[in-house]
């Protein structure tokens, strides 16, 4: 099979927009199923009372990573054609810190706030307006931060390349780490937990 289908030209740009919408529906659906449309549930992650964010996120990462790995090993997907974001280390670390701060103050991240809005959360809507404002500020300040924005470039580098280890070893390491984190999360929730339920 020739996957990724789009990169092999099996369909055109117009069709890709339909694909985008369908994939988005799946994305939004499972975000909401996991409780990601609820700011309290998301924020609880950072008070160790409800570790759903960690569980859902790392389960998704492990699922997609393992699936992609095996599909590539069996020759279904050409892994080299899957787009990997280039690394710019310092801006990404600083951006991550800032984003984390915004996450716990606002209660959402961009994707989850969309789900919050469509399930009626007013704070989600206000949060979305905030994002629009933040992007505007960043765009206006872009000439000032451009130098930093392109600093410490490392190219489209992956962890196997960085550590010079086989891809499969990293897959195993991430799975093991995730399972360890899940075990710790379950234990922690039992100790301190008050899982946030819908009410």
């Amino acid at each position, binding site marked *: 099979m020739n996957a990724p289908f789009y*990169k092999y030209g099996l369909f055109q740009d117009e069709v890709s927009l339909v694909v985008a919408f369908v994939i988005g529906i799946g994305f939004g659906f499972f975000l909401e199923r996991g409780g990601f449309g609820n700011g309290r549930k998301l924020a609880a992650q950072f008070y160790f009372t409800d570790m759903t964010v960690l569980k859902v996120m790392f389960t998704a990462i492990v699922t997609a990573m393992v699936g992609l790995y*095996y599909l590539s*090993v069996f020759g279904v997907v050409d*892994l080299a054609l899957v787009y990997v974001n280039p690394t710019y280390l310092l801006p990404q670390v600083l951006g991550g810190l800032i984003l984390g701060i915004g996450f716990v103050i606002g209660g959402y991240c961009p994707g989850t706030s969309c789900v919050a809005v469509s399930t009626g959360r007013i704070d989600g809507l206000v949060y979305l307006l905030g994002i629009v404002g933040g992007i505007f500020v960043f765009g206006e300040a872009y000439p000032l931060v451009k130098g930093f924005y392109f600093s410490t470039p490392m190219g489209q580098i992956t962890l196997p390349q960085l550590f010079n280890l086989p891809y499969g070893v990293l897959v195993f390491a991430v799975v093991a780490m*995730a399972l360890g984190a899940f075990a710790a999360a379950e234990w922690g929730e039992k100790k301190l937990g008050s899982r946030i339920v819908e009410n």
Partner: protein
Amino acid sequence: MKQKLARLGLNGRLALIAFTLGLIALFAGNPYQGSQVTLDAKELGIMVDRQVDHITVDELADWIIKGRSDYRLIDLRPENDFSTYHVPTAENVTVAGLTEYPIQRNEKIVLYSEGGIHSAQAWMLLKALKYRGVYILRGGLEEWRDRILFPNIPENPTPDQASLLETMKEVSRYFGGTPQARGQGKDSPASALTLPKLEMPSSGSPAVAGKKKKKEGC
């Protein structure tokens, strides 16, 4: 064993599956397909026979003049030759560098080399790698010189040839060449003539850059 599995809840079972898959991944090998390919010899053979993947220099000249940007023109010659002269809008890639070069498999690719051998070989490589629209500039740069840059215009054309010849002259000048009257003897081959400077054509050169960047990130 079975009893132990039964006592494991859903989460435990999922964890077990994940762990097993992770463990196998340790030994399952490299996921990158690398440069090993398989190809359908018959399908390729038919395409070669039918010559469906040839582009004439006239067509290419027409595309460039019209400023079409729905294709990528690839010059397979060495860098030195490329910097001396290349067809406007061409990108310089060696055959070995092709697999690493950022072209998508759904893009229209036109290959040319000095004659046609390199582009034919590169065509085979790209086809095997499942690139869809790969085309060869028939006759390569030699033909481009002979027909586009320095077309042979007879001194006394017949009336029905005249309008075609006029167009050829115009095209030639557009690309900075000079129409020639060499006669049939080919005593002065076109390759001996001075190639136009690279900045030609200065006017109406199609803008390849400036397209909306394909942002694939978040």
